């Protein structure tokens, strides 16, 4: 894979090219702009093009009660995500999506990463995806960071190495089922050492919703899912497994410091929705081995509960086995006050295996959240999370209380 060296200058050039492109071709078929979304979509025959982006700004107060190690408490504000991207299609079959990850305040400020960055060929009810993607990831990773119920995803997703990798994927599905398979290498955001072979990953996911029906009163849903992934380090850097106490920045205190060489992960998903009430639970177990033949097994799960105070259901997508954005029934400005949701989470991960490492241990996090979506595409999230971090050694436990307020918008 090629090292990603896009600069912000290149990104600016892309944006300019996009607007110039719309101006130069005036012959038939003509360019028209569709305004059914928040952003104008350029249409030219069967072709479509639009800009997209997201911005997430967090205010975080961390209060750690630490028995050993450096103090971690503090009050910070930071940009959690800033994406700018494009999405479109050349005709019904050939589609693309590229989100560039800008990283203000994130160190090397001249380098731009990618999030989704793929070409997709859609043929009937199946498609093939080539590029950086996560189509086989577990439920919570398949939900956009804009729409996940808590500010940070669960320990399961963050510690078991989910996220995007580059490669090829196959998707098919129907009204209430989804199958995806992927063969991937490393992420396009990883630097490559030529003369050595990068990591490989094979993965698949199957979801099925035996009950899925929507009316204006809400959605009734039972979602079931399973997934599996097999990874091999090859000559790439080793896999690591670390967990944050439901914060977006700062110390990963439970850190087994295992240099994983191969691992296999199995997971199961359950989601239910009954009008304004919903619950999601995921479990996964990871079985790995270091290059030296040391075996380890980790497992993790979480249970989320939601209640939409204003009545909306989460927006399920049967053919993707995931949830999309919640649009308020009565947006602010139209006589309503938008969408309000309260949520609660129990999140557990066991990274204590094998015995011996001082920083191995378990983390249990409890979180409550309040979300406010005044209008579609604008969201405020207030989370309080309490995490108990128990290292295997005696007398080195830690607790963290973290309050985060997120302001986000997307287009």
């Amino acid at each position: 894979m090629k090292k990603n060296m896009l600069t912000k200058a290149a990104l600016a050039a892309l944006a300019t090219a996009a607007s110039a492109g719309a101006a130069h071709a005036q012959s038939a078929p003509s360019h028209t702009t569709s305004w059914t979304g928040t952003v104008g979509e350029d249409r030219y025959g069967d072709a479509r093009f639009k800009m997209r982006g997201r911005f997430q700004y967090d205010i975080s107060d961390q209060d750690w009660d630490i028995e050993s190690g450096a103090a971690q408490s503090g009050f910070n504000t930071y940009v959690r995500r800033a994406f700018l991207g494009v999405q479109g299609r050349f005709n019904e079959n050939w589609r693309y999506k590229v989100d560039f990850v800008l990283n203000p305040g994130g160190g090397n400020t001249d380098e731009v990463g990618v999030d989704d960055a793929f070409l997709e060929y859609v043929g009937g009810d199946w498609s093939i995806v080539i590029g950086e993607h996560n189509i086989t990831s577990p439920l919570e990773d398949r939900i956009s960071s804009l729409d996940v119920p808590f500010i940070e995803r669960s320990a399961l997703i963050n510690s078991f190495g989910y996220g995007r990798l580059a490669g090829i994927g196959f998707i098919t599905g129907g009204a209430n089922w989804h199958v995806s398979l992927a063969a991937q290498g490393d992420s396009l955001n990883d630097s490559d050492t030529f003369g050595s072979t990068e990591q490989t990953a094979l993965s698949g996911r199957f979801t099925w919703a035996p009950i899925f029906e929507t009316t204006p009163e809400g959605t009734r849903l039972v979602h079931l899912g399973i997934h599996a992934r097999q990874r091999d380090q090859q000559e790439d850097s080793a896999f690591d497994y670390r967990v944050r106490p439901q914060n977006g920045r700062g110390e990963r205190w439970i850190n087994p410091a295992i240099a994983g060489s191969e691992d296999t992960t199995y997971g199961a998903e359950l989601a239910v929705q009954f009008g304004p009430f919903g619950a999601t639970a995921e479990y996964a177990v990871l079985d790995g081995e270091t290059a030296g033949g040391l075996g380890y097994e980790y497992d993790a799960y979480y249970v989320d509960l939601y209640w939409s105070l204003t009545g909306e259901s989460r927006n399920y997508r049967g053919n993707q086995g995931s949830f999309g954005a919640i649009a308020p029934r009565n947006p602010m400005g139209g006589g309503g006050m938008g969408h309000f949701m309260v949520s609660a989470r129990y999140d557990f991960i066991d990274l204590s295996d094998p015995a011996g490492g001082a920083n191995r241990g378990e983390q249990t996090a409890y979180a409550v959240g309040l979300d406010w979506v005044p209008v579609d595409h604008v969201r405020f999230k207030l989370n309080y999370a309490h995490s108990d971090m128990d290292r295997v050694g005696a007398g080195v436990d830690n607790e963290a209380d973290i309050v985060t307020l997120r302001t986000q918008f997307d287009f």
Partner: protein
Amino acid sequence: MNILKTAAAAIAALALGAGSALAQQPFTIQIDGSSTVFPISEAVAEAFQQQTQGRVRVAVGESGSSAGMRRFCRGEIHIADSSRPIRGSEMDACRAAGIGFVEIPVAFDGLSVVVHPSNPMTSISVAQLRQIWAPGSNVNNFRAVGGPDLQMQLFGPGSASGTFEYFTEAVNGTARSSRTDYTPSEDDNVLVQGVANNPGGMAYFGLAYYEENRSRLKALAIDGGSGPVLPSRETVENGTYQPLSRPIFIYVNAAALRRPQVQQFVQYYINNAARFSAQVGYIPLPANAYQTYLQRAQRRQQGTAFGGRALIGASISEVLARPLVLEEVQR
């Protein structure tokens, strides 16, 4: 830790506040879509609300067939009024959102082409209509289509309208392909006004609006190849007013039909569709058709009889004979 306590208290307070703000309101059946179907739905809704003495409310919008379908397949409304069959892309959108639909044809409509009463023209052929309405057409005088030397002023429905879709497909051969230099409106009354106030006016819309405004407008007889035929109940019913007669529909959210209020309303709609459609100027279906559709609603039978495509120039008996399918028919 004060900030934490404050935050937790704020979450709890807001949860309670918002929860109690959700006062119970009477159940409201939400309908939106075609302005052609609107007069029937509105008449049914009014009568139904009177009958149920306000225990059930019915809100009827008229944002056009396409806009109504878009809302329907997002789960925002219980019933979509449509003056054309559901499209394949809309079936996909509904499917992805977990929305099943029950298709109920409620009446037949003759699409009328109207001019000002002072205009001496009495009929027009489909070919002449195409000359006028084809994309890029520059016909601006009635002389070009065998009429008087009179400057034309064209009015028509907006592009979100099922009437627009049906007319463009029936006349120009391709749905949604039309000249664009005319005055568009989703409100049929605006089109009526436009023609009634302009000697050179010409417009097309549902038969009901012509029936309602007979004194101010003149309908042209349409020659589809076998001589000019005026739009009327008889000519639509016996299938001679072609190609501008069409079935009009309501699409009902299948899961919502489990709600007694919605089931009751839809049954009331079907049982009274003949009366109300005739009252507002459309052509009722035969009684046995309504019987079939009543069963369809009671059994919540999903699917469309049209395979995601438009159906041009079908008679009532042809529409009734078609079986229901759930998947889009590939072109």
